């Protein structure tokens, strides 16, 4: 209850008009920044930090919190409408979201993303308020060995993303894993596949690859179809009553909640982060979907937007758990928040709640406030955003190309990135042309380095003894759960087949897949 009283005190601070104004400024900026590809929340915090020097600590921290949550909201808009993810956590949203937009359901996709973000953000902030210390103790138990186990789970769930042709899916995944190898090896500081070029030394940014594959590849593909006939303008759903139909609510609420409970724990794990959470959420929604809805995956299923969008917002709150309670920054954005705190002589860490309790609770309270503001701000904007899609395709796609190139340039402010964007974009065009799925490539790019580094760290600590990988209790539990679930799902599938052969009317239903919870 002490926490509750402290939180109420936090609200008393955060709801003062001047702080509300700061929160508004923060969320506006964050949304604007989230929309731009290339400039993620981490970079915007870094660029804005000097401007906040003139603010007192509470105001500055509230602005940062606004930017942080706002960035998570904003990222979905361009993913859905333009197939141009703004940061790595909204890559997955583009998979189904953009298909929905093309089918004229852009407004529904944006609405479910906004409401899902709000629901997840609020629940996750409640979890942050009351569970932070407990979760933090658990989170440090996730070391390299446990991480390897989690990554194996992630790779297996992601199998769902491989698409209809296993072989092509694996080829795409392998390509992603290969691109992930480029750059300086984290464990030995040796360069790999950089051809001695300093511009490749840091590898290729995953957002760059995603924008190239999704946006540039698609723009080229659309251009290649232009001569095949007149171009249709994408239809747009009517008034706001059509945004979320009854069925959309029915199909969205479970993914929102599942996304929250997938995103929050993954966010709290050191070296977790929102992007992994979105993949796991997407994969589980796809597996859990039934009948008609399952067939929509790949063609614009609302669950595929609702789940990942909730997951990335919940993960954003989760990331604050190790940051505030242990002083461990698990993402680039969290590292920037840490720097921001330090500027004001506030050291996030085990003593933070004791030494700067009032400020921390004001921060947490302003997360609630910011979340509500974002919903109020974003829902009315949905109607305006979707109008973008009424631009004739030729103009729309040339605009997307400019936008993508600008975003690529702003990742590091080097023209080399624009060239890389175009090369991968052309590649993306051919992948699309010959029916190779692009999602697995991005998955490989994100999960590959985590898996590799954690596996090598595990083996370095155990001096090459592979038994260490399964001897940790947490990791062992994960593997056992994984085996049980797989065995169960095979058994269920067999039962189901027997069942179906006797009863033709039965609706198809897949195996229970709880491995996500592992």
């Amino acid at each position, binding site marked *: 209850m002490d926490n509750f009283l402290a939180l109420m005190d936090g609200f008393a601070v955060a709801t003062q008009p001047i702080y509300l104004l700061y929160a508004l400024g923060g969320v506006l900026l964050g949304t604007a920044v989230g929309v731009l590809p290339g400039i993620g929340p981490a970079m915007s915090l870094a*660029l804005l930090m000097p401007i906040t020097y003139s603010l007192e600590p509470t105001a500055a921290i509230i602005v940062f919190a606004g930017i942080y949550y706002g960035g998570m909201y904003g990222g979905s808009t361009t993913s859905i409408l333009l197939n141009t993810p703004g940061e790595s956590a909204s890559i997955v949203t583009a998979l189904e979201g953009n298909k929905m937009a093309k089918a004229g359901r852009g407004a529904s996709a944006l609405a479910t993303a906004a409401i899902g973000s709000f629901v997840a953000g609020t629940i996750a902030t409640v979890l942050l308020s009351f569970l932070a210390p407990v979760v933090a103790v658990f989170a440090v138990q996730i070391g390299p060995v446990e991480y390897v186990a989690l990554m194996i789970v992630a790779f297996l769930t992601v199998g769902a993303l491989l698409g209809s042709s296993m072989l092509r899916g694996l080829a795409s995944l392998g390509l992603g894993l290969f691109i992930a190898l480029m750059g300086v090896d984290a464990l030995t500081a040796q360069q790999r596949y950089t051809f001695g070029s300093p511009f490749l030394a840091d590898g290729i940014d995953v957002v760059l690859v995603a924008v190239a594959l999704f946006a540039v590849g698609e723009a080229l593909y659309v251009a290649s179809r232009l001569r095949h006939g007149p171009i249709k303008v994408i239809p747009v759903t009517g008034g706001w009553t059509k945004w979320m139909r009854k069925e959309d609510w029915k199909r969205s609420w479970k993914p929102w909640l599942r996304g929250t409970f997938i995103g929050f724990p993954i966010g709290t794990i050191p070296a977790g982060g929102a992007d992994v959470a979105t993949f796991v959420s997407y994969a589980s929604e796809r597996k859990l979907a039934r009948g008609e809805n399952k067939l929509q995956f790949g063609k614009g299923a609302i669950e595929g937007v609702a789940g990942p969008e909730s997951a990335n917002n919940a993960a954003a709150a989760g990331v604050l758990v190790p940051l505030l309670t242990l002083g461990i920054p698990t993402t680039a954005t969290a590292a920037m928040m840490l720097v921001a705190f330090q500027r004001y002589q506030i050291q996030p860490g085990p003593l933070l709640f004791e030494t700067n309790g009032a400020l921390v609770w004001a921060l947490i309270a302003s997360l609630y406030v910011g979340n509500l503001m974002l919903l109020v701000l974003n829902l009315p904007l949905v109607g305006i955003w979707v109008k973008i899609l009424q631009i004739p395709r030729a103009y729309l796609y040339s605009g997307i190309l400019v936008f993508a190139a600008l975003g690529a340039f702003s990742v590091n402010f080097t023209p080399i990135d624009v060239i890389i964007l175009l090369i991968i974009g052309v590649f993306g065009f051919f992948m699309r042309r010959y029916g190779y799925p692009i999602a697995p490539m991005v998955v490989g790019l994100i999960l590959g380095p985590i898996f590799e580094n954690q596996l090598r760290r595990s083996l370095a600590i155990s001096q090459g003894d592979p038994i260490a990988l399964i001897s940790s209790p947490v990791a062992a539990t994960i593997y056992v759960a994984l085996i049980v679930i797989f065995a169960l799902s095979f058994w269920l599938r067999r039962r189901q087949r027997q069942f179906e052969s006797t009863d033709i009317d039965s609706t198809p239903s897949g195996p229970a897949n709880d491995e996500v919870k592992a």
Partner: protein
Amino acid sequence: MKIDRTTARRSTFTSLALVSALALSACGSMTESTQAGGEEGGIEELNIVVPADPGGGWDQTGRAMQKDLQDTELVSNASVVNVGGAGGTNGLAQLATETDPNTLMVMGYVMVGAVETNNAASRIEDTTPIARLTEEPLVVVVPADSPHQTIDDLLADIEEKGQGVSITGGSAGGADHILAGMVLKDAGIAPDSLNYIPYSGGGESLAALLGNKVNAGISGVGEYAEQVKAGQLRALAVSGSEPAPQMPEVETLSDQGIDVVLTNWRGVVAPGSIDEAKAEELTALVTELHETDAWKATLETNNWGDAFLAGDEFDTFLDEDITTVKQTLTDIGLL
């Protein structure tokens, strides 16, 4: 909480300004070098190249310099350009082609190592050293329930178990890794006994320490200070020549009989192409900056140690540092 009207008004203004700020800052960091017209006295326009993405230590140093130089009117206009990547060697490559003599590039200990491990074409020796400005010592820690009470305990354990003792810290070939190599060498332990587990930063390595996944850790004093204070980590030694202000009770390595002093220092260099007069002018500018109250306040707020060293002394220091780093990187098998 009461806010008097003028502050309130100013704060309102600031929050409005924030909204337009992003665009401005983005432009600011993209600003191309503007040629300063051949003025004789004083530097009108100064370019500060930050060889890293916004946010890190070099960026903070560059932006603090920009602010203080402008606030104290030592230069009328200073702009910061971020050229990130490859441990700063991308920035170094850019500096090599810089034609504007009024250019300073932030750099530091990490770049010395990165040039070697990346086998970079442009080297620090090709630049004109101007001054060293700040430093932060490193600290060697163990988890609270580790049996090791002193640095000798830890070293004895490494001598006995070799790679069975794992040490974590920041990226491979960085200051943390190099310190581990130097300490082992001084203690007469074979360098291949070092089992170093790198993370992308000291902050991330914390999780491995708090979860007891590794035996010891090395990072900047600032990154572990809070956990040491809370009793979750035990600091065994700091790497400066004197105890660190954040943990004054922790003895230095030299006090404990290990003849190693290593601080993560940061400084500035100018393009190699400038003439002697320009080098002196830039050195004088940085020296003046160092003496301002604004800079002293900057050091204070950021917990940066004052490590000012200019001209030939900095030049000599840099040469020595490059030699030691190269030797250590070879010893620990990275070169």
